[in-house]
């Protein structure tokens, strides 16, 4: 793989970033990385290089066009420019822009890891509610085999979660 800067030497410095809404893999050779200050052991140059390329402050506020996050006012244009988001709600507001970069960045596009207890409880709460509705319907329709299965599922799930919050979320 050749260096992105000089295009002649073998690259051995790699990093990934988002620039202009695109995932970019940057590859530099030793000399070019040195020129950019990557080898400076004491200074802040590395941070500036890595961050600076993603968060250039020099451009004044780009004309705000297109979609805005209704909560924090962060724009689609801004995301394309800096590759970061304004607030957690931006992930829904700018969802399609986010999704276009995710596939290139990660192993998958869906979270499969840790779930905070709060979210797990509300997910289980929703499931419990749905099961109770199904159970009522099954009894109404005299589908007793289904009803027994649903009741068992409810009994298994109910003790694992805290009582539902007073307001539905």
């Amino acid at each position, binding site marked *: 793989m050749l260096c992105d800067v000089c295009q002649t030497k073998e690259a051995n410095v790699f990093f990934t970033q988002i620039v202009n809404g695109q995932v970019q893999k940057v590859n530099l050779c030793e000399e070019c990385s040195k020129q950019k200050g990557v080898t400076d052991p004491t200074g802040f140059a590395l941070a500036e290089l890595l961050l600076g390329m993603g968060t250039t402050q020099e451009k004044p506020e780009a004309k705000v066009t297109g979609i805005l996050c209704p909560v924090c006012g962060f724009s689609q244009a801004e995301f394309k420019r800096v590759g970061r*988001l304004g607030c957690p709600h931006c992930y829904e507001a700018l969802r399609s822009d986010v999704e276009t970069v995710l596939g290139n960045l990660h192993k998958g596009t869906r979270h499969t*890891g840790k779930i905070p207890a709060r979210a797990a409880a509300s997910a289980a709460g929703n499931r419990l509610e749905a099961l109770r509705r199904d159970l009522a319907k099954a009894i109404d329709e005299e589908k007793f085999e289904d009803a027994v299965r649903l009741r068992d599922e409810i009994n298994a799930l109910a003790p694992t979660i805290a009582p539902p919050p007073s307001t539905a979320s």
Partner: protein
Amino acid sequence: MMRFSTLVRQPAAWMLPEGPHADIVISTRIRLARNLASRPFPGWAKKEERLASLAELQPGVEALPDMADGFSADLTKLDPLQKQVLVERHLISREQAAKGPGSAAVINRAQNLSIMINEEDHLRMQAILPGLDLTRAYGMLDAVDTQLESTLPFAYHNEFGYLTACPTNLGTGLRASTMMHLPGLVLSEQINQVIHSANRIGLAVRGIYGEGTEALAHLFQVSNQNTLGEREREIISRLEKVIEQIIQREHDARQKLLQTNPTKLRDHLGRAYGVLRHAHTIETKEALNFLSMLRLGQDLSLLNPGNRLLIDHLLVEIQPAHLQLAAKKKLSAEERDALRAELLRLHLRNLPEPETTPPTTPPPSQE
């Protein structure tokens, strides 16, 4: 909470070479990124909003059982030298050190747990342990995260997982990394190949101080790039497998150097020993590289064993901010180079000479 001077009087936990594979893996770090659900990310937040996030986060972080008797400070209350000392110990990031009002660092007494508030994310929590100890480091941090989430509403999305300022950290918010000493792979010119192959499977290998064959002290950080689509334990075990392979290749490279080019190896070591024992002025770069050779020499039993602790401390103590902390004043670059040489001579004064082999050519016959 403890004072800065008390905190830094003891070395950081990761500087104690007692962990698994401590000869090659200096330290293990796990980092989790978390954000408050209803506040703008630090980079987009206005100053008042950053201060409000800090006010919401800091008490809970300080109240963690792990942080009892710990250190906590707003970044604006620390001078540049103090911040740089924390950077040199890997307790805060360079990015965090550059932050203004609204940012803080909370660090436990053992210095193996540090939580940055308002870095790129509201919380950047990290556990750092000596040696290769990814699972234990993750366990520590996972427990802290679980304690915090009982009182703090973290931003979480059913599909995207933990929401972060940058999509590169989305999902688990987990970055696992190890700092590795790889002189064998550098000297045998295999390091670029290792970097390439790791990169191809989504892992990053970067010099801690500089890159590739130019990496000072032959120190490299190996870390995961993907944070979404895999569970935490999967990310960690994938990384661990690759690290174990790198350890094996480094061992092989060292043995091969010893067998095929012992003279070159002993020459590197002898020069390092000579300069470190006798120089009166020495730059960080030169000192790091020579200390790395001593470390290699001691791990190959060419040098008196039992000095790794000392060498690993010196790798940190010779850095600019640590030198100035010891001197209790700001120093010019020349003053630092002289003090660095003095410190090295002092600490290495009792280090016996590297083992020498019997001469391969017979002494000239007397006529």
